[in-house]
């Protein structure tokens, strides 16, 4: 039976190395062996008094502007972030995503991503005509390329570099295609 082992037979081989050897080699081995010593066991532990909350329902934060919310929420939650309120065209797109589609709908997320790209494009355009345009060297951190890579990192077969050849196409491609479609539409309108 030398060539027949688990999983083809029932037994599990004994622990090698032993408990004692593991304890000697690895500080703390087995300290949480008992699941009761593990802080997330059991997963749900009803203890509302242990959180520090001294309210049944929190005071409501003032809603100083119409705060968008998921339509899966029954109410506006009492506390929320207030940075970067919706604005402009991207705001219209994002508000439509929140107003019309639940989180279960792909349209919800695709609209939000579209809003992100529209806002970024607007920010880049505004920056380009401002007195303090974006500095691509410092803002992308690309100047740190000189600090050194792991030996062989730029070889074409490393997992995180083997798609570099196609990255510019994937990143720039949608912008080029969108621009081309926009130009065709604009041109057809102008010709009428």
């Amino acid at each position, binding site marked *: 039976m030398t060539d027949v*082992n*688990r*999983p083809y037979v029932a037994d599990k081989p004994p*622990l090698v190395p032993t408990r004692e050897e593991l304890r000697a080699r*690895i*500080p*703390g081995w*087995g*300290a*949480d*062996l008992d699941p009761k010593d593990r*802080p*997330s066991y059991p*997963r*749900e*532990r*009803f203890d*509302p008094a242990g*959180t*520090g*909350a*001294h*309210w049944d*329902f929190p005071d409501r*934060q003032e809603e100083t502007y119409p705060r*968008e*919310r998921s339509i*899966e*929420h029954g109410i506006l*939650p*009492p*506390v*929320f*972030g*207030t*940075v970067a309120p919706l604005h402009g065209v991207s705001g219209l797109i994002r508000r439509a995503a929140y107003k019309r589609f639940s*989180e279960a709908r792909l349209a919800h*997320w695709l609209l*939000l*991503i579209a*809003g*992100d*790209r529209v806002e*970024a494009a607007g920010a880049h355009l505004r920056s380009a005509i401002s007195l303090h345009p*974006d*500095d691509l060297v410092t*803002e*992308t*951190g690309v*100047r*740190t*390329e000189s*600090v*050194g890579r*792991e030996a062989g990192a730029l070889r074409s077969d490393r*997992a*995180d570099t*083997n798609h570099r050849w*196609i990255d510019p196409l*994937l990143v720039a491609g949608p912008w080029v295609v969108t621009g081309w479609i926009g130009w065709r539409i604009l041109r057809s309108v102008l010709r009428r």
Partner: protein
Amino acid sequence: MRAMVYRGPYRIRVEEKDVPRIEHPNDAIVRVTLAAICGSDLHLYHGMMPDTRIGTTFGHEFIGVVEEVGSSVQRLKRGDRVMVPFNVYCGSCYFCARGLYSNCHNVNPNATAVGGIYGYSHTTGGYDGGQAEYVRVPFADVGPQIIPDWMADDDAVLLTDALATGYFAAQLGDIVESDTVVVFGAGPVGLYAARSAWLMGAGRVIVIDHLEYRLAKAREFAYAETVNFAELDDVVLEMKRQTDYLGADVVIDAAGAEADGSLLQQVTSAKLKLQGGSPTALNWAIDSVRKGGTVSVAGAYGPVFSAVKFGDAMNKGLTLRMNQTPVKRQWPRLFEHIQQGYFRPSDIVTHRIPLEHIADGYHIFSAKLDDCIKVLVQPGA
């Protein structure tokens, strides 16, 4: 104040912003003394997270000093040195009352499927993060905790997410004595998960990555065996060979949405955004674990679908366990482990970057330059 500001995918800069103000009676304003860049910040940086708005400040790993408190705050006062869990949570909703702090229902209007997180897009509530000189901290009586005198700042900031998440991931594996535990990803969370697996009695821990310098850290810090998947045709087959064709008892996905290893998955997720994430590590986990085993997911994924091999998971009778980490639940026990000297969290820190140069930190971390594993950010430096 000076703050890191998002300018669009792959672009960030530091600029002047207003100091945050008290917006709720249980808010605190914290002056940040140390922050960190998390692997999941890179998903924002790469434009993968929906509703990431221009002008927002990232950073969900930070510690600091209380500058101001709201009228209902009882447990903190100005001058307290505090560590802040990455979760924004109320402590009183249905989920918080049951210890599911990362699933709080009272702090995120933008989505019900995820709780509140500092500096992690409007999809997690629209809060500014701690890669800045000051940050608004809601529910000051619930989340933040005064840092013990004996604890170093570097260790405290790592407890706000990375260490707590790695420890939590190992717990989700339901490890029993002598289990073989495989960890995909040798970044900070993977290193901590591997180290934590031993605490729970693992008999063997194997860490898999393709970056040799990170595998070296896994051998040194986490006492793990290591496998470089880039040197193999088929890492799943290698795992079967190494486990007598049984498969690992527990596999932890500590890679998440931008896992490398499959060109198709990488391109369709990280580049074309057609998936919520590249589930390469998750699929390898599903195929490497033994039948009846457990896959623990610590890696973060976006909210749209990902091409996960669910049929294999079903046919193998797997248990899939996952959640964002309820950080504060992990702290008392982790404090004990650190005090016992079992490990020093800051041993994985490789870079310290002044806030003014944070864009460099992002690029170094993202491009895996200079043997980077963990970047700390120093406001005012």
